């Protein structure tokens, strides 16, 4: 107990000192940001009123979606100010949710970084020098510039993007479609693993179709690339419940993330080598015959015959919707080898007894079952090989394979972090589909695969869309956001809601050069985010707590429908997204097609609802304190959604593991590849020996909450490194360090910790660049693209973690 005392004292004392220091830094930044008004001066008139009559009201709304939470909040507004935020009561208490991000809005809404008025750039792009202008001037300037660019280069030369939180706030955008702008198409984000697993498993954008609340039925849960406890924080209850119910939680991560720390087993795999562990597990499962042959025969493509020479599936070629949802595609009505008749027959022929293994001769061709080919493929991926690549010993890999195959229903939560952001992510996704299908751990209660940080499967409902004229649509997609820095494009002007550029693009210096090359760039944001400094015109948007009307957005979240009640008036000169879109489009005369206000939009969206939304109306939603469950949303959702029988949405209704469209890439079955840059053996490691990886912190949703003066007391940009790597470079805990490679550099604080694999640096993404002493983390990241991914559903993915750097004292 003496030990505890010393520790807790040291700890608390340290944090108190840390608080004082952080507060001093905050003050300096606040002054430098050049706010015209402090909250107090702006709010002074209200304050005078407050002393005479203190009035409280309760408002309900749905919070952020970008964290994939979307919690139903109960806000207390006192004298026109947001005073308290807590979770709203819910019938199913599991949905009574909030996390620190929801609570901190009490400060964050009033943060010094709020954009207060429209601004016009007066310095160079990036310099951050602006003058205050009126809304009229700002909107006219946007219209004049956009019109000039579109007249010269065509409609598609305008790029319009709502970054995720802004687009999710409303659910859709008007400016982009009415101006026939380029919308950017695929974004290259978060679909690395999904590229590989979705064709087989029919996940939804990588999301598990089974609910996260089902995890309590799993015996083993493997987290790969997910730090649930800091990303979709509120969903962690399901993981904690599962562990309490007896599930063994195994978490792969080069760092002891909070999620890894709450697991039964931490697997500190080398960056990008998760795929080696999974391939080793697959080989070990086959070698030990831990696979489920009945499941494989009945519910997977393993008995299907493949032509050895061409790699083509044997069977009649037909036209239909293929397994990645492409219509009018070639699909094969596969054949199996019927052991009863000794001939090849269609896989779905009544009474067929398919061989799971074997080589046969068919019409003079040599054919083999998929499983036979897979076994051959996996032979080289021995435990020893996997251990060598991954840094995880063979015995441990064998144990994980045993836990996965033999302990009962097993779930893999393969998410959008960590290994999702390396060049071999698709191979990992495919390998995960392989072990799930070998062991029958898919399509059963407690046995699923996918991304769970959004809660997994839930009830869905579609609101009635605002009707648009037929001509109001995006131009043909020619530029994907991840290509801006690496491929020539025809974009000459951009309007973004939120920071669509600097947050997302790897190798930021190249992206910034591209932004600087634009004829015109306008940004609409709530806060002075990193991208604002590059904009020509800046418009201040208000937060979701602010409105000029009584109600704002309608959203479907967590099996419920919510409408956002106004909490406070728009702060400063900010306006709502809808007001801003109406103002901009009025310059073209298109405002006539838009809803006049949220009331009109909400009533439209809530009219004639069908399916799970049937019976929900504007009136009864308001009457029920702005929230109603979807049909049966009052009942436990886990029984209602997902695959609980192994019948799937592929053309064959089976798990289709063999990707014949990737034969030319050598990836019909997963074939090990190193990542692009961060792998052992890369000669570049002699110059830049450390892998730089990013992940989540509880204090951010991407860069959102950088402005929170509450969070700033606990968190500032820092890189976590192993003490041995620090010692070799003369770095001490708390030192400012320069992280660098040939692409760029930045300076932040070093945190030394034993809970990270030596040779790896970890940093939470991301924080507005002005809070760094120099640069910011995307200056060093990798913008290479993986060519084979153009053949895949989600295209190439940004290789945020596939990065080598070195570090030294700043």
């Amino acid at each position, binding site marked *: 107990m003496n030990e505890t005392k010393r520790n807790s004292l040291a700890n608390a004392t340290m944090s108190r000192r840390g608080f004082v220091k952080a507060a001093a830094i905050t003050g300096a930044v606040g002054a430098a940001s050049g706010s015209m008004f402090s909250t107090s001066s702006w709010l002074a008139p209200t304050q005078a009123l407050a002393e005479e009559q203190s009035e409280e009201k309760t408002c309900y709304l749905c919070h952020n979606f970008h964290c994939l939470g979307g919690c139903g909040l109960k806000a207390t507004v006192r004298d026109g100010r947001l005073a308290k935020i807590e979770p709203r009561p819910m019938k199913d208490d599991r949905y009574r949710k909030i996390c620190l991000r929801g609570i901190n809005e009490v400060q964050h809404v009033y943060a010094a970084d709020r954009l207060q008025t429209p601004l016009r750039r007066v310095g160079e792009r990036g310099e951050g020098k602006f003058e205050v202008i009126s809304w009229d001037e700002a909107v006219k300037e946007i219209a004049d510039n956009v019109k000039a660019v579109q007249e010269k280069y065509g409609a598609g030369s305008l790029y319009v993007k709502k970054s995720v939180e802004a687009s999710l706030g409303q659910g859709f955008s008007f400016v982009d479609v009415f101006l026939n702008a380029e919308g950017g198409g695929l974004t290259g984000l978060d679909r690395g693993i999904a590229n590989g697993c979705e064709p087989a498993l029919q996940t939804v954008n990588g999301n598990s179709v089974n609910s996260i609340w089902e995890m309590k039925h799993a015996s083993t849960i493997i987290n790969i690339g997910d730090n649930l406890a800091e990303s979709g924080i509120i969903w962690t209850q399901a993981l904690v419940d599962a562990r309490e119910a007896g599930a063994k939680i195994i978490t792969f991560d080069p760092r002891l993330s909070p999620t890894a720390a709450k697991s039964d087993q931490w697997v500190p795999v080398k960056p990008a080598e998760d795929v080696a562990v999974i391939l080793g597990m697959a080989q070990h499962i086959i070698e030990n015959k831990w696979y489920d042959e009945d499941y494989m025969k009945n519910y997977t493509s393993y008995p299907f015959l493949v032509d050895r020479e061409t790699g083509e599936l044997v069977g009649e070629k037909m036209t239909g919707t293929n397994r990645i949802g492409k219509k009018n595609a070639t699909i094969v009505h596969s054949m199996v080898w019927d052991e009863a008749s000794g001939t090849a027959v269609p896989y779905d022929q009544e009474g067929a007894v398919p061989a799971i293994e074997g080589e046969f001769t068919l019409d003079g061709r040599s054919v083999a079952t998929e499983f036979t080919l897979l076994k051959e493929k996996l032979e080289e991926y021995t435990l020893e090989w996997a251990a060598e690549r991954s840094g995880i010993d063979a015995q441990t890999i064998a144990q994980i394979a045993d836990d996965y195959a033999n302990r009962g229903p097993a779930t893999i939560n393969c998410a959008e972090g960590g290994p999702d952001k390396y060049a071999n992510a698709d191979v990992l996704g495919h390998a995960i589909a392989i072990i799930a299908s070998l062991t029958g751990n898919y399509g059963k209660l407690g046995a699923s695969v996918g991304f769970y940080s959004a809660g997994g499967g839930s009830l869905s409902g579609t609101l009635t869309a605002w009707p648009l004229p037929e001509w109001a649509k995006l131009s043909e997609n020619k530029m994907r956001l991840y290509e801006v820095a690496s491929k020539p494009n025809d974009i000459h002007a951009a309007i973004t809601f939120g920071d669509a550029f600097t947050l997302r693009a790897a190798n930021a210096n190249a992206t910034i050069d591209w932004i600087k090359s634009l004829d015109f760039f306008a940004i609409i944001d709530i806060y002075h985010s990193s991208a604002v400094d590059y904009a020509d015109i800046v418009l201040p948007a208000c937060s979701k707590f602010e409105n000029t009307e009584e109600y704002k957005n309608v959203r479907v979240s967590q099996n419920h429908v919510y409408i956002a009640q106004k909490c406070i008036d728009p702060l400063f000169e900010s306006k709502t997204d809808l007001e801003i879109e109406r103002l901009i489009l009025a310059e073209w005369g298109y405002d006539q097609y838009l809803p006049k206000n949220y009331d009109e939009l909400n009533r439209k969206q809530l009219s004639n609802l069908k399916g799970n939304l049937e019976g929900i109306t504007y009136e009864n939603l308001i009457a029920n304190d702005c929230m109603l469950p979807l049909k049966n949303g009052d009942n436990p959702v886990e029984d209602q959604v997902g695959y609980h029988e192994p019948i799937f949405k592929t053309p064959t209704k089976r798990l289709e593991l063999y990707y014949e469209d990737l034969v030319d890439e050598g990836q019909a079955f997963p074939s090990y590849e190193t990542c692009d840059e961060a792998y052992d053996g890369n000669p570049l490691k002699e110059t830049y020996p450390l892998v730089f990886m990013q992940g989540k912190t509880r204090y951010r949703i991407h860069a959102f909450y950088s402005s929170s*003066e509450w969070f700033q007391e606990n968190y500032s940009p820092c890189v976590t490194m192993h003490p041995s790597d620090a010692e070799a470079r003369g770095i001490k805990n708390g030192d400012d360090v320069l992280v660098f490679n040939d692409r760029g550099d930045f300076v932040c604080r070093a945190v030394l910790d034993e809970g990270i694999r030596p040779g790896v640096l970890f940093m939470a993404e991301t924080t507005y660049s002005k809070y760094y002493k120099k640069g910011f983390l995307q200056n060093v990241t990798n913008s290479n693209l993986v060519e084979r991914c153009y053949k895949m559903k989600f295209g190439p993915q940004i290789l945020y973690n596939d990065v080598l750097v070195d570090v030294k004292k700043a």
Partner: protein
Amino acid sequence: MTKLAIAINTDRCIGCQTCAFACKMQNSVPQGMAWNRVITEGCDHEDGSLGTFPNVTRTYLPLACQHCENPACEKVCPTGATYKDEKGRVEIDYDKCIGCRMCMAACPYNARVFNWAEPVRKPDFKYGDKEVVERERGVMEKCTLCKERTNRDEQPMCVECCPVRARVFGDLDDPDSEISKLKHEKSVRILLEDKGTRPQVFYVS
């Protein structure tokens, strides 16, 4: 009698700091101060690890006033500002506090924070519970077990907001309460038991 208490399940706690910010908001706690915080046991930084790679461990330990049955702070308070109330909570009468900080030194849990300077609140208007009294310079403050809420039969804000349901609030004098059952059924950890302070906040796993 009533003996209000909190049990914290450290197996469930994920260290997310939601309880810490819920407390800051509810109680209008100024910048640079915390009534409640989640420490990483034995570490000088948040999310630190004990041991040597790869054999490391981490324990998140939410820490606030322990509402001791035998509070060291109460004994040393020269004015009676710190007292044990009828519901078993340790409270401070701010009007009686002379800022001598004897209690701060006496508390083995370092749970008390002092207004050394004029408190700075962000936002700079009164946020939090309407009934909570803002403290001034020279006054000691700490977790009140959300006395304004618990007086209204609501649970403390840290318990209300915990996203993983790691916290249980209740009356230890009621043998049928969930918290009383937890105390008997689970493995219980009391911080610094040898100090004889007999905390009513306890940790289960």
